[in-house]
């Protein structure tokens, strides 16, 4: 990686800050998760059978564990979609806006540009994890768990862990957006990952499959050993490398 990585990270960060896309994805993800979780908990409290059936054992859990359990289950799917859309935009927009031609013939290698985009995505995803954790904490405090279940507050740590794992799983969207030269291939890849991870998690298979482990951990934390979660880091490593390689070999031939 050449010495210009810092410069390109600064450029990509400037673009991400100025764009309403990233802000809207953050607002929709955090706001949507809080609203959906609140709705599910209200439904369960009022005895709605459909909601109780969806929540399963979580309905009887209550306290911080119950709240966090609902949040991480929704975030495992919703977060993946949000992160996949963000990566599709970060990478695919260069093709959609035609700006990719300006990223050739520069004293910066294109793989460096791809890595810089991933760095900015990672920093943003960490920010989303922090904001969502604070939102869930405020929600729990508003529900009175601060007094009734003070010891269970440690459950909150599952929120940023799940958000970060989910963000790592979305990296193939960047590769797909590059290979497909636009946003839609990245979004299609994201939907594919969501279907595989959610269906596998629901039927309880794939503890050692990185795409499945976080969703399974969201449903049944005790069934997923920590090493299986560590294996998730292989996804951004493999697909981030493929993405950098694709940017290095890129040609404007379509």
């Amino acid at each position, binding site marked *: 990686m050449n010495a210009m990585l810092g410069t390109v990270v600064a450029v990509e960060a400037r673009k991400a800050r100025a764009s309403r896309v990233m802000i809207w994805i953050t607002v929709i993800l955090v706001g949507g998760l809080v609203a959906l979780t609140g709705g599910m908990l209200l439904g369960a409290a009022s005895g709605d059978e459909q909601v109780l059936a969806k929540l399963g054992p979580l309905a009887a859990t209550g306290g911080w564990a119950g709240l966090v359990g609902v949040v991480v289950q929704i975030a495992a799917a919703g977060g993946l979609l949000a992160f996949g859309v963000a990566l599709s935009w970060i990478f695919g927009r260069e093709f959609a806006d035609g700006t990719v031609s*300006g990223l050739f013939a520069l004293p910066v290698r294109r793989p460096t540009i791809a890595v810089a985009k991933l760095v900015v995505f990672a920093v943003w995803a960490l920010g989303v994890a922090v904001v969502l954790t604070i939102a869930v904490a405020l929600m729990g405090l508003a529900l009175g768990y601060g007094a009734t279940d003070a010891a269970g507050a440690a459950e909150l740590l599952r929120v940023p862990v799940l958000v970060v794992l989910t963000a790592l799983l979305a990296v193939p969207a960047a590769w797909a957006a590059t290979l497909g030269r636009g946003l839609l291939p990245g979004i299609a890849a994201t939907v594919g990952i969501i279907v595989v991870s959610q269906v596998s998690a629901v039927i309880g298979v794939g503890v050692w499959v990185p795409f499945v482990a976080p969703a399974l951990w969201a449903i049944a934390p005790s069934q997923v050993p920590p090493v299986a979660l560590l294996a998730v880091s292989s996804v951004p490593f493999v697909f981030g490398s493929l993405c950098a390689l694709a940017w290095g070999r890129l040609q404007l031939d379509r």
Partner: protein
Amino acid sequence: MKAVRRAVLEARAIAREFPGGAGVRGIDLTVAAGEIHAVVGLNGAGKTTLMRLLLGMLRPQAGTVRLDGVEIADAAPQAWAGVGHLVEHPLAYPELDVRSNLLVSARLHGIPRERAEALVARALAEFDLERYARVRASRLSLGNRQRVGLAGALQHDPGLIVLDEPTNALDPAGVILLREALLRRAGAGAGVLVSSHHLDEVARIADRVTVVNAGRVIGNLDPAGVDLERAFFALVHADDVERPRA
């Protein structure tokens, strides 16, 4: 007649054909320091493919491209710091204002942060964009977005300038600004390659005019000659008549 100067860009027998027959079929071309070289051809003649090959946006199926004597496949990234280009779309991100777009362009061309501000201020003035400095590119007209792209391509005073149909969408004032900017830089020693589908104001200031048709160089025009349009169409017509028999 200018003295022969070193070639800053040199293509030898480059070829890249696409399914369906479009592309470039063995073009030789040089751009010397201090000269403006125009490539003129009708739509689909292969000008944009040629520009992309010269800038590494496409890999040739045959032939070589040398930048300051070094084949571009082997050129160090820093070799591109002295190149400014605009091919098809200007590097103007819609969410960034004009000043930020120019700063981004300067930084990507390797200009240190402390120098970039002064370069951008000069580029805003040179391309009459000062009143739009704080306006997002998404709100600009097509012509002003093109000005932003041109300012970004030229502000770091590159030694080689490659512009594909740079007068697209420019108003007459913009064309004159561009023409003056190119003449200044060529006068200072930069090699300039511009393409056009017609003999526009920029092609007319060229030291050399190369005519391409069907992916090949078919001749040259004397920029000082009279009735260039007639000479251009005569060359293209003769090639179109001759080619099917070849």
